[in-house]
Structures are given as structure tokens and as C-alpha cells.
């Protein structure tokens, strides 16, 4: 019969969190953390850490920067296209 130790819990944290753990191991994982307070805390803290990172706000391009970028892009690719066209001629 397989036994899961505290060290294994550390190695399995990501697979457990990402739901990529197979059923048999998952049962053993649960059995272990129900018995082991330390590992239960470890799982909680691990999940909390990821929750914090996942809730980072998206970085947005400021409207003025966006307008500047669109203007720049339009001009620059036109320049390249014209150069190419002249070269072909």
C-alpha cells in the first residue's frame, strides 16, 4: 500500500492545485492532510499565495499611450510599405 509523507505533499501541491493529480494519489493526499495539521496549513498557505497572485490587476495601456501607439504604428508601417514599393519599382 502506498504511503504519502509530508515531503510528498510538498511535491504534489501544484498537481493538487491544478487538478492534475490521479484519483488514487488524491485520496491518499486527502487522507494525509486530514491527519496532518502542518500539511493542511501548507496547502492553505500555498492556495492563498496563488490566490493573491491571480488577483493582480491587469496592466492597462493608458488611453493616451494607446492613441500614440496607433498613430505611430500607422505611420511606421506605411513608411516601410512605401519603401518596399519604391524598391520593387
Amino acid at each position, binding site marked *: 500500500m502506498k504511503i504519502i509523507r509530508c515531503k510528498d505533499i*510538498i511535491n504534489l501541491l501544484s498537481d493538487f492545485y491544478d487538478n492534475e493529480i490521479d484519483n488514487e494519489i488524491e485520496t491518499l493526499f486527502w487522507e494525509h492532510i486530514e491527519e496532518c495539521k502542518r500539511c493542511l496549513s501548507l496547502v492553505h498557505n500555498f492556495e492563498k499565495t496563488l490566490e493573491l*497572485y491571480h488577483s493582480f490587476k491587469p*496592466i492597462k495601456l493608458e488611453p493616451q499611450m494607446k492613441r500614440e501607439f496607433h498613430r505611430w504604428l500607422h505611420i511606421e508601417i506605411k513608411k516601410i510599405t512605401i519603401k518596399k514599393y519604391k524598391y520593387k519599382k
Partner: protein
Amino acid sequence: MTQLSSQLIRKDLDEATLISLAKNGNTSAFEKLIKRYEEKIYSLAYRILQDKEEAFDVLQDTAMSAFKNLKNFQSKSSFSTWIYRIALNFALMRKRKQKAQLKKAQIIDSEDSDKLPQFAEIAEQNLLGNYVDWSENPVISLENQELRKVLQEAINKLPDKYRNVIILKEIEGRSIEETAKILGLSISAVKTRLHRARLYLKWFLEKYITKGQMV
């Protein structure tokens, strides 16, 4: 202006059509295509560089490079992966320059003096002494400005190979498969790095929480 580029581009055109039009010289289609990714490119660059202007420069570099090299884009991979890869390379190049300049000015102090422990040591620490569950502590929230800074600092301090995976997968929300393609790594390598990076981040956070006696 070519005949194609004078065509009106409908807003709802699918990506494959836009790519095909852009490859045939339709500049308007290329602009539309880039506009679909501009926020993501900027965000990725900002996460790596922590500087608005540098991130904006990466956006410009990426757009230019994509325009010049679009003919080399093979539809076998997704456009999203392709453009992310370009953006990441430009961002990492700038990051290296930033680091070199800081080193020159001898501003880097904490990064060198505060070397990261080996991964095994971090894993080991979870098995030693009293281990406190701080997950339910109301102070541990992103509303807490100081904590947010600590989290950002923790990401910045991660070695590149871990930081890139965390930014792409955890913060920018790319899948494991796409992260692997963007970084040119195998899926199992991404999973290993992701797991280690997550444990590093938990370690950083715990260090701050226990030092600051928040729990």
C-alpha cells in the same frame, strides 16, 4: 497603397483572415491584428520591466518585428504564441540591459546579497519548526498596499527562468501548453519550474509575514 490595403477591414474578421490579408500587404489588417494583442503585449512587458516607457518601447519593437517578419509566420503555431514570443524576447533583452546598468551604477545590492536559497532548502523549511496557517488572516489581502509591494518584489527577485513562467502562466493567464511554446520548453519543464516558482513565492511571502509578525 495596394488594392488590398485600400479594402475596408470589417471589425469582426477572424484572425486567420486578418493574418492572410496582412501577409498579402494589407496594412490595415495588420494594424487590426496588432490592436487585438497590444494590451497583452504591453502587460507582459510591464510585468517583466516594471517601467511604463520601457514596456511601451517593447510594444513598438514587437509590432515592428511582427510586421517585418510576418511572412515567416507559419500557421502551424498560433499567432498569439508567436507574438508573445517576440514580445518576451524584446522584454528580456531590455531587462538584461536594465540589470547591467544597475550593476554599473552599483545600485544592485539586495539582489546579490540576498541570494535565493536552493529549492530543496525551501521545500525543507516547510517541514521544520512550527508552521503557522496564515491563509485566513484578514491582513493578508491585496487591499494591503504593503503586501502588494512585497508580492511584486518577490516576483522581481525570482531568477529569470522562474519569473517568466510565473508571469506567463499565473499572472497573464496563458495555459501550460502555450507557456511551454512561448518559452521553447517542454510541458514537464514548465510544470517543474512553475511548482518551484510557486513555492519560492510562498516562501517570500511567509518570510515577510513572519518577520513583520503579521501572524
